[in-house]
């Protein structure tokens, strides 16, 4: 390729204004439907808006201080963090375990991968419908199974201590496929000759795993942990359709709080402030995880 041509294809500086036309359509959508709402959300969160009289009053940080004092919101924050903390490690550990077990050629491996990934394509409505039926107190599949094992049946969704873990189990069942596939892709990128060398040294399975496999996929472990934390902070549909935040507010997450205060009580400023708090928590969680991973890197 001639020099001038190479420069024409990828000029490091400048270039042609007309080329920007390629990005203009997306950029218009991005500015109008993401950047503008983000700014406006911040602005709304500083106001008290009355939907009936269509009036809006600037109140500064009042919505935020009220949130801080709101027991329901504090409960929602607690529930959300509890949910993220109980589900993310399961996604990482179970996802990796499944990937290790199913990283094999042949039909059985493919079929099993399809089983664990398949439920991810179902919508939250179907998943919760199926699981509400399974967890029905008297005639659900779980009750049937427990009775046939000679145990007394339980109804997790109506128990204050078991409802949130039950939602976590349903969520893991629903989307364990994503971390499993990410780990599978990472495992397949590890060069085989490293393992052959380990086999010559007759290293044990556990040693091979901790000394070779785990260090090779460290970046994917961090990636999965970050992705799952982000996803699980956004918990909403499962709870809204299975428990409505109950029993006794024990499962209400932040997004449900936003939904209820914004679209049922129409307290827009208050809901927008809660959105900003959620956004802040998510950024903080990701930063901490990435920071921890970096620090381990250096150690």
């Amino acid at each position, binding site marked *: 390729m001639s020099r001038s041509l190479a420069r024409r294809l990828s000029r490091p500086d400048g270039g042609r204004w007309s080329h920007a036309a390629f990005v203009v*359509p997306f*950029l218009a959508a991005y500015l109008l439907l993401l950047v503008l*709402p983000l700014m406006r959300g911040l602005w709304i969160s500083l106001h008290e808006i009355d939907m009936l009289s269509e009036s809006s009053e600037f109140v500064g940080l009042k919505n935020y201080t009220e949130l801080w004092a709101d027991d329901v919101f504090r409960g929602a924050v607690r529930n959300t963090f509890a949910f993220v903390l109980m589900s993310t490690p399961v996604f990482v550990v179970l996802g990796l375990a499944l990937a290790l077990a199913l990283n094999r050629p042949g039909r059985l491996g493919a079929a099993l991968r399809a*089983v664990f990934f398949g439920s991810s394509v179902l*919508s939250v*409505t179907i998943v919760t419908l*199926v699981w509400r*039926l399974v967890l029905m107190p008297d005639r659900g599949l779980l009750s*049937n199974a427990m009775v046939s094992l000679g145990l007394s049946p339980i109804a997790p969704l109506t128990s204050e201590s078991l409802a949130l873990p039950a939602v976590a189990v349903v969520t893991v069942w629903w989307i364990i496929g994503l971390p499993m596939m990410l780990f599978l892709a990472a495992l397949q990128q590890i060069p085989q000759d490293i393992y052959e060398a380990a086999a010559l040294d007759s290293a044990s399975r556990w040693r091979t795993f901790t000394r070779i496999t785990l260090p090779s996929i460290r970046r994917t472990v961090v990636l999965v942990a970050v992705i799952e934390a982000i996803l699980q902070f956004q918990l909403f549909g499962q709870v809204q359709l299975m428990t409505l935040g109950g029993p006794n507010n024990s499962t209400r997450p932040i997004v449900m709080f936003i939904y209820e205060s914004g679209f049922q009580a129409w307290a827009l400023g208050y809901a927008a402030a809660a959105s900003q708090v959620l956004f802040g928590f*998510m950024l903080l969680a990701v930063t901490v995880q990435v920071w921890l991973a970096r620090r381990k890197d250096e150690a």
Partner: protein
Amino acid sequence: MTGGRLGDRLVLAAVVALAVVWLAPLAWVFALSFKPNEVLQVRTDVMLSPPFTLKNYTDILANSQVFQWIVNSLVVALGQTFLVLVLSSLAGYGFARTRFPGQRWLYVFVLAGLAVPEQAIVIPLHRMFAEHELHNTYAALILPRLAAPFGVYLMTQYFKAIPADIEEAALLDNASRFRIFWRIVLPLSLPAQATLGIFTFLTAWNDYLWPLVSASKPEMYTLTVGLASTQTNFAQSGGLGFLMAQAVFAGLPIFIVYLFFQKYIVSAVAGTTVR
């Protein structure tokens, strides 16, 4: 090595057992969806013995709104997929293969949007669409997701990986950049288009929060929101079979799509994020 083999088999047996547990809820719901409601009212531990019935399914078909919801979901998911592919391909090409002032800064600005969750903007977005009286239209259901930068990121990465000499000959002919994009580069990107297309379609089909707050009229519900609206009378357990048939009816089409496109879906999930 025999010890290793035995260990292998034990692991496989454990995973197969887990897979059975994993499938049990779906199998149970599927089997019971063919049972009469009156039987299910008394007991649900009789999966494979008669009587069987198709009444639960004919009941769904009699509820004419389900078809409207399916049409809505199809319009929204296909429309969104088409528009996301167009916008992302154009922008991806622009960022990967052309140069214009401020480009790098702009790309970083767009990627920063990956960090913004839907929930952070749902309130102002709802207000904007209300001000323009767009709620309960297809436009309102389709437009918000077009701003998601994921597709742009994916297409940019893909276009960057296409060797530059392919465009060389065309540039010598002084073809316009758009012509080169349309005739040469776009056809080469079909695998990435398939990946992004399936990903977008599935996300749109299963979307819950935005359609829930935007579509308030039942005739504008998507299938996901419509199904949720029929579950409110869950407590009256007379219709267990009906509910189960509903889960199967709504889940089966997307599951068949999944089995058909499995290869692309897997590469969509696995190939793009690990680089």
